[in-house]
């Protein structure tokens, strides 16, 4: 009996020991809810998903770069210099911003995230077997487009930047110093964008991985690459690179886009002013744009629209828009409010581009739109120029939509005020045409053709055409002004001012016209056509990067 007990005890002991013996395999636990880089990029479908992934990084850029670093910085906008807190747009618009402003870091990181995903795609996709080389080439072309574009934006913003052209570890990246702007253009922007132009089909031939049509997804096609190359070359021809040969290349590319459009039934041209207004309505995504950042509600909407806007009352939107203090520069406002010979305003202004105010509503006081005097270039003083007018171009307000005949309530599908399903144009035909007009004037002094381009745009909007017998310099003034009016709010103005090297005068004039001690013209320092290398980047690896002049 005693013996039996011992056996029982021993067998129980053995049982316990057996139960607790485990193998080591189960320490390798893969994440349950996320894919891993190492296991993906294996099939054409996954290749396409990786390409879509690169595009998805563009979401914050309408806001962070095109609104804050271009519109707000330029003479299109006036920002309240004395806001109710540290509003970065106010620091940027008043040229007080130093390297610690987080928007700079955000934009830097956002473009390098595009580059990371593009580098990974360009590294992995060549190893994937496709049934159609055309589709494979298209995906590679898209990745080249996005990477080239990313470097173009980075070089315009920051000047001297590190070139990362393949997947690298954090340790390897720490050894990559900045390259100067010329090197960045020559070594990566031009090669990438040229490869994109070569590899990409036109939008009607854009395909998904399954071979279905991808025409409507707003992805970059050959014409987008061509237009972007035109812009890149024209930028190189101007300040600060001043490459005299680049203008010729720009001419070829810009002409190519214009010719393609006219050969395809004026594909990118809104035929009348109503159509022109409707292109900013969410239903008409991609209707006339050559390339636009795509926004859909449901968490992938456009956050710039909220930040463009001051507070809006309930009859405009059911969303809580509490607003920023970013307004149209009063001198631009004055120019845009001039009536034509028939006593009518330009159709791009009231109720479509710029809202001057609204009446009181329940719980909403009337909009305080103040006025101010403005000294015009000829020395006369215009009174009662609106100073608090809003950017209203993209705002799909209930009122604007109703006025243009759209009755669907787009706000029910939106997660929040950052979720507007409205695309942000990156490049439009009017932009390409006006750049081409610049080339015509610069290279050939061809006033007639240049002014005809301007007049086509003006007349559509209901403004009086210019005479075609202007001097070359007056014609250039007209082209530049038309760019400002037509492309207002589209994030091109600051880069235009830099390209023309008129930025310093334009900003000084703006500061002086507001006659306030809250802005200081001494902040408009020579080096500030560039933004600072963000403080976080300077701190992450001290001594690796050199700060741009006139920043600390």
């Amino acid at each position, binding site marked *: 009996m005693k013996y039996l007990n*011992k056996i029982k*005890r021993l067998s129980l002991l053995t049982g*316990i*020991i057996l*139960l*607790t013996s485990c193998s*080591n395999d*189960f*320490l390798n*636990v893969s994440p*349950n*809810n*996320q*894919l*891993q880089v190492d296991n*993906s990029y294996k099939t054409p479908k*996954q290749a396409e*998903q*990786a390409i*879509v*992934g690169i*595009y*998805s990084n*563009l979401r914050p850029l309408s806001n962070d770069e095109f609104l804050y670093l271009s519109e707000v910085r330029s003479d299109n906008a006036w920002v309240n210099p004395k806001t*109710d807190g*540290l509003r970065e747009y106010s*620091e940027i618009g008043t040229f*007080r911003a*130093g390297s*610690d402003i987080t928007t700079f870091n955000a934009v830097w990181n956002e473009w*390098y*995230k595009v*580059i*990371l*995903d593009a*580098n990974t795609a360009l590294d992995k996709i060549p190893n994937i077997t496709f049934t159609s080389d055309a589709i494979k080439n298209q995906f590679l072309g898209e990745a080249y487009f996005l990477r080239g574009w990313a470097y173009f934006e980075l070089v315009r913003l920051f000047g001297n930047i590190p070139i*990362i052209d393949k997947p*690298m570890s*954090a340790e390897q*990246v720490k050894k990559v110093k900045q390259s100067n702007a010329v090197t960045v253009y020559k070594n990566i922007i031009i090669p990438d964008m040229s490869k994109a132009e070569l590899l990409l089909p036109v939008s009607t031939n854009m395909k998904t991985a399954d071979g279905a049509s991808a025409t409507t*997804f707003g*992805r970059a096609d050959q014409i987008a690459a061509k237009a972007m190359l035109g812009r890149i070359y024209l930028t190189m021809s101007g300040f600060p690179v001043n490459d005299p040969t680049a203008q010729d290349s720009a001419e070829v590319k810009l002409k190519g886009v214009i010719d393609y459009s006219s050969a395809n039934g004026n594909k990118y041209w809104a035929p009348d002013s109503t159509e022109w207004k409707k292109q900013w309505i969410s239903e008409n995504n991609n209707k006339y744009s050559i390339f636009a950042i795509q926004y859909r509600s449901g968490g992938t909407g456009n956050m710039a629209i909220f930040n463009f806007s001051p507070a809006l009352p*309930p009859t405009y939107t*059911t969303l*809580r828009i509490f607003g920023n203090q970013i307004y149209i520069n009063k001198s631009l406002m004055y120019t845009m409010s001039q009536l034509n010979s028939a006593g009518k305003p330009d159709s791009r202004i009231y109720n479509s581009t710029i809202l001057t105010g609204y009446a009181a509503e329940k*719980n909403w*006081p009337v909009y*305080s*739109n103040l006025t*101010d005097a403005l000294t015009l270039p000829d020395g006369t003083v215009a009174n009662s120029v609106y100073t608090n007018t809003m950017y209203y171009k993209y705002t799909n307000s209930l009122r604007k939509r109703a006025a243009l005949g759209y009755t669907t309530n787009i706000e*029910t*599908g939106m*997660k929040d005020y950052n979720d507007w399903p409205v695309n942000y144009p990156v490049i439009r035909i009017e932009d390409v045409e006006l750049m081409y007009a610049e080339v015509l004037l610069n290279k050939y002094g061809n006033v007639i053709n240049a002014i005809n381009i301007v007049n086509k745009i003006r007349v559509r909007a209901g403004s009086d055409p210019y005479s075609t017998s202007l001097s070359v310099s007056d014609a250039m003034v007209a082209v530049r002004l038309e760019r400002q009016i037509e492309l207002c709010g589209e994030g091109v103005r600051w880069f235009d001012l830099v390209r023309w090297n008129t930025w310093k005068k334009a900003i000084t004039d703006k500061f002086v016209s507001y006659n306030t*001690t809250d802005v*200081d013209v001494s902040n408009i320092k020579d080096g500030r056509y560039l933004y600072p290398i*963000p403080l976080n*980047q300077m*701190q*992450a690896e*001290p001594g690796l990067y050199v700060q741009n002049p006139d920043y600390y």
Partner: protein
Amino acid sequence: MKNKIKNHSKNDRHYLMRVICTIMLGMSMQFIVAQSLSIKGKVIDSQGFTLPGVSVAVQGTEIRTITDADGIFRISAPSSKSILIFTFVGMESKKEIVGENLNPTITLRESAVSLNEVVSIGYGSVKKSSLTGAISKVTADKLDERPIARVETALQGTLPGVEVRNTTGQPGQDIQIRVRGAASINANSDPLYVVDGAPVPTLSGINPADIETFEVLKDAASTAIYGSRGSNGVIIITTKSGKMGKIEKPIISFNANYGTQTLEKKMDLLSAKEWIDFRIKYNDANYLALATSKGITNASISDPNSLRMTNIGGTMSAPNYNVILDNRWFNVVNPGSHTYTSTADQLSLLDWQDNFFRTAPTQEYNVNVQGGTENSSYMFSGGYFNQEGIATGTGYSRMSIRANIETKIKKWLTAGLIIAPSYSTTLGGGLADGKDSKTHQTLSSTPISDPGVGYLTNVQPNTRYLWAGSASSPTFYMQTNLNRSNTLLLNATSFVRIEPLKGLKIQATASTNVRNTNGESYVYSSTGGSWASGEGVNSSGGHSTSTSMDNNLFQTVANYDNSFGKHTIGAMLGFSVEESSVGYTTNQTFNKPFPNDALPESFDGSVIAVGTDVVTKLTPNILESYFGRIQYDYDGRYFISASVRRDGGSVFGMNNKWGTFPAISGAWKISDESFFQNLKIDAINSLKLRASYGMTGNNAISQTASYALLSAITYAGQAGYKISTAGNPNLGWETANSTDLAFDLGLFRNRVQLSVDYYTKVTSNLLYQVPVLGATGFTIQWDNLGDINNKGFEIELDTKNLTGAFKWSTNFNLGYNENTVKRLGIANTPVYSGFDGTNVSNVLQVGLPMNTFYMYQAIGVWKTQAEIDAYAASHKGVAPTFNGTTFKPGDIMYKDVNGDGVITTADKTYLGSPTPNFTYGMTNNFEYNNFDLSILITAQSGGKILGIIGRAIDRPGMGATSNVTGNWRNAWWSESNQGDGKTPYILSSTTGTTIDSRWLYSSDYLRIKNVSFGYRLPALPQIYNSARIYVSVENLAIFDSYKEGYSPEAANSGSSSAPGGGNSLGIDYGGYPTSRVFSMGINVTF
């Protein structure tokens, strides 16, 4: 038929009687009516000296007395079989059967008192006298008498080196514990909690009244047995259980507690009248500034509203409320020199703090039954706790049940089971704590509203007061909206223990924590500013669930203990596997517009637009461990203990799964050496030296941290994936090397006991989200880079000051900890963090304590232009500037740290640590007859707290629509009205929202944490064995200098996304206030 019924009912009654008997389980119903015996005796010590003040009691009765000055006692015992119990501080207590001798002389032996206590050491236990590590033990005596929602509160102020921080006053929220300082940056710094031998993820759901003891393992020699999770200390909790071995009457105890809570401290804000004064000054100043910028030279504060608007380029049809005045203000104040139209309207004058914070009840009931038989023991308990929060709409309730059962199946085989389900409900969780919370809004809400509106500002049916901000009434919001989360927590443990040989015990344990949470929320249209759009139009709702099994544990531990002569050995060998995070979470939100507000808890995604609809399978975290320990002691004088643990963890990279954690410790009881006894130092009756070294780890990081992952996205409606995290296959353990040197001293028959520990803890291979260059495509990446040093000392002093009829004992403890960052990354690059990751206020930097405050140092206000000119003159004529902007009178003056005459980012400076160096606790217990009083005082010093709420409501630039702190009574308004020299001009625009030391306060405080006064009712054996009533005050008083928030312990705005942000202690953005609780209760034992 009738008979049948009768019979039936008789049977029923019989049955009922049995049930009642079972329920009442041995409640003593006997009446003792025997003849009593008079006893007169004497109590002496081992040397024959008489002992006055010895307590003498008759067991099982309330009959008791105390020996007089000559050691004599007189007592009546019910019978000769009665048992007398003699107790005296510093002596072993003794039981004597009365027997025949009615004049006994009782000898009490000096005891090592508490040194004979048994202490849990992790996978085993030792006598306190043979302890070699640093372990503190708390017996949770009166835990059920404090109205506390969380177990951790009981530890506050009771143990040296254990910092317990109520970072929020929100009922039921987690409480932060730091053992010997924070040793980690990104990985968790919370200790490991072990309840009845099984690790648990949190102590929430555990009823404080069920707890028997706490043990806190502090040094690595003690915690190394928990290996990869030992770095932050281990808290071992043992719950109450019955006693096995002989048949004992069950003890039934019941306690009830009811209390009311009030705001501990009110913040100093402007009153309604003061705000009107302030607003008039602001609008005047703003008007004059705007008019000047428009070239108007003759503007005056007596200008009427219409002229004001004209002068700034506007009209009265669209007035600027920062310029025009409300005529109705002048019914309240009369500053003169203003033009206004008198009006009969009376504005509502508000005090939002009084409105939002309420007097709230708390109540608690517990029943506990414990007992045992020859072969089994049991404990059953049930408790209910309900606390309404002082912030309107918040609250916490918990129902808990626990059963601890153990039974001896054979002489060598024992099995046991613990089941402890709890169900808790939190109302308004997180809504009243921190940035943009309702507490924040309460502080910032405009203190006046339109006539008749009162506190229902900007909610249905009231329109907004035109001079106020757009915030809606926080009180109405909290009263009306739904925000509830329910958690069902099941903690279950079962074990089998065999004893195949004498001294050898092998126990196999299986344990699990099942957690099921569901949260629901609904925000009514009517509670926001756009209520006018109608019912449901702006409503939103959400629902979330989380089902997980955590700490699924299977472990086998063998313990062997034996003695041979003077040698005592103990050995332990064990193995365990643990798995956590097994389960799913779902998160659903629904978008406006809702058709109506009728069903706030049911959502139909086919009718209402779905906002978020996410299902996530959790990634399990697996830990596999082997561990062992050997202890040896010779003659009770020399002790040595060595342990080792090997842990493999799934959270780490492929190349670094396993870690080994050794420890060794020893002790020498000098007082038992003959040479020491020969010294005949009467005062010292025990002295022990201890020393230890050990290595521990920390694995508390995300389960997916080592993998390079893709995240799902959509672009233009197409699905895709983008890279979300950089992988790191080399990611490994964070390790800490610790040493501890200590002595334990007993003086004056152990009436004074002193323990002093000195320790160092060096954390290396810090698990840390290293900031990386943006050019990598990432901003941060997990890595093992960095070292942190903690060192300090702890003193624990227990004294029995008075031991007579009036007893007084004191426990004093003090902890000092010094924390220094030693290495960071490869290049020691400082890491900046702040309340939201972008507004820098803290830095991790080599040579400084973790998260040292780093900001501009505000040293006053530029009072006059002459002052600025004089400063410029003394700096080569260069006018002082702030990042390029020239200072004007009324601007904040900063310390020019580098002395270059201008203020730039180079002038940011280090302004102290958010963690206090010293933490203190003192408990005084008094007893006289049936009365007892205990007073707990807690204190800390040497830390700072940043009242970042100041950035929102206490700076120029935020305008004057909201309320502001009392500082603004004394603001700078002009060169002739300079204010207190600290508060700037409201229109000062130099500094924007720059974070500076204006809002940095010392977090030193001394708090009378708890005062309890109790009375033991005379015994009524027919009804109860003992009964006690008590009153208690929690947070009676606080002495501190923190003006910008409610509690110097608050921490609510660390951003975990920023490197180092997860630990940003001491940043308070409108934290939920602490409450003062007056409570009373009763404890009855049957």
